[in-house]
């Protein structure tokens, strides 16, 4: 697949369809791959990489890059949902991007590999359904399914809702049941248990803003949390309240627009399961206002900017689950 992608990228650069290509650049230890913009064939030949560690969602970069001229982006299915949402919100001009959908078998999470006690990694190779991890302390073999990112284990779709061309076979939507299991588990707890759970998680927050800055739905020019006139600008969570405030509002501001790409959880240096906040909103919206999938198309109205006369009253919250 990597060779096909490189070939297509070079062709599209050569025939002038695009002037730049967004992809991924290899790193030092095979897992530390950075998103990158390539401008010529030589760069692509040398540095372009596509493997199980290309986890970063490149769609957000297209806001900036597409403003500079036509750009090619390779999109995994989840990136394509993010992309489509950005197109629907007019953050990216469709004619300025050339989108190639690429299949994705799930991305590996280096932290899950390391959590198995593997350290001193010098290289990783894919070997069927396993990875061979070379380390200075010897080689280790780990099963692919054991080290996939959480978001990939509960992948929502292998289908690309938007693309100009596809490489490989188009996939299908996957059943959603597993995706909400984490939310359901929390819903089944008592309020005290939920409170304790979230305090434990959110108190780890170092307010690095990685979750916000990486989020393809967080595209405000000036975030409320950076705006001194908003009254809630914060730079560090100086009080537990601010941890709650930040994460509730961050999730709320992307509710109805979040495609559940899982980038927030991927980038969190403290491993806070931020997707559980976003998925709660997705689940609530599905249950209360009918199934809605952000990034599916650009016609269906966002559930938070629409309504029906028969909508549930807020008191519905009081009647549900355990208090």
């Amino acid at each position, binding site marked *: 697949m990597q060779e096909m992608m490189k070939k297509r990228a070079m062709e599209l650069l050569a025939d002038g369809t695009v002037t730049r290509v967004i992809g991924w650049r290899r790193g030092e230890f095979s897992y530390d791959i950075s998103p990158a913009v390539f401008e010529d064939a030589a760069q692509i030949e040398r540095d372009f990489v596509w493997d199980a560690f290309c986890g970063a969602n490149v769609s957000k970069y297209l806001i900036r890059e597409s403003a500079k001229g036509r750009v090619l982006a390779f999109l995994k299915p989840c990136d394509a949902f993010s992309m489509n949402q950005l197109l629907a919100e007019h953050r990216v001009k469709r004619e300025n991007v050339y989108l190639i959908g690429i299949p994705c078998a799930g991305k590996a999470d280096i932290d899950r590999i390391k959590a198995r006690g593997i350290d001193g990694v010098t290289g990783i190779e894919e070997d069927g359904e396993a990875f061979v991890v070379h380390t200075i302390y010897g080689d280790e073999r780990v099963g692919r399914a054991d080290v996939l990112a959480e978001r990939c284990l509960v992948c929502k779709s292998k289908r690309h809702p938007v693309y100009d061309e596809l490489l490989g076979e188009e996939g299908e939507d996957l059943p959603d049941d597993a995706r909400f299991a984490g939310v359901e588990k929390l819903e089944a707890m008592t*309020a005290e248990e939920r409170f304790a759970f979230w*305090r434990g998680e959110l108190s780890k927050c170092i307010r690095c803003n990685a979750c916000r800055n990486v989020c393809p739905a967080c595209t405000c020019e000036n975030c409320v949390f950076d705006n001194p006139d908003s009254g809630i600008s914060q730079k560090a969570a100086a009080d537990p309240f601010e941890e709650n405030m930040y994460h509730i*509002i961050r999730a709320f501001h992307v509710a109805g627009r979040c495609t559940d790409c899982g980038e927030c959880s991927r980038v969190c240096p403290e491993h806070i399961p931020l997707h559980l906040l976003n998925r*709660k909103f997705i689940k*609530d919206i599905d249950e209360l206002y009918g199934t809605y999938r952000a990034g599916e198309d650009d016609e269906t109205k966002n559930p938070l900017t629409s*309504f029906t006369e028969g909508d549930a009253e*807020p008191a519905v919250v009081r009647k549900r689950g355990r208090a």
Partner: protein
Amino acid sequence: MQVNETGAFVPTVVAFCCNWCSYAGADLSGTNRLQYPSNIKIIRVPCSCRVNPMFILRAFQRGADGVILCGCHPGDCHYTTGNYYTRRRMTLLFSMLDYLGIERERTRVEWVSAAEGQKFAETMKSFAAEIAALGPNRRLEDLRCRK
């Protein structure tokens, strides 16, 4: 935390009231000499839709023990549809607060028209009593603001 002369907890309750209906409803209950608790702090807003989730959270941050939002009955919004959006927003916000383990009884939305002075007073009484029974807000308070 405020206590009364008998040592019982007196909650601080913030009520966001729509200018066109509930705020007038509060007025009406006043002119009708209907009593409602003095620990209800009314904040007038141009429409219930003006209240965004940060308002609710900031009220708790600043010492509220309960927050109630009052607007026009669905279908009667002065701006036609504002309260429909409010309804969705608050439903999702309250659900999220509940999900975070914050007492679900601390937040409420009620639709009170300008003619419903009685309903306004009753709603406020019952909400204040509910919050008093619940005790002080400890899960969504800002410790720096505690006196």
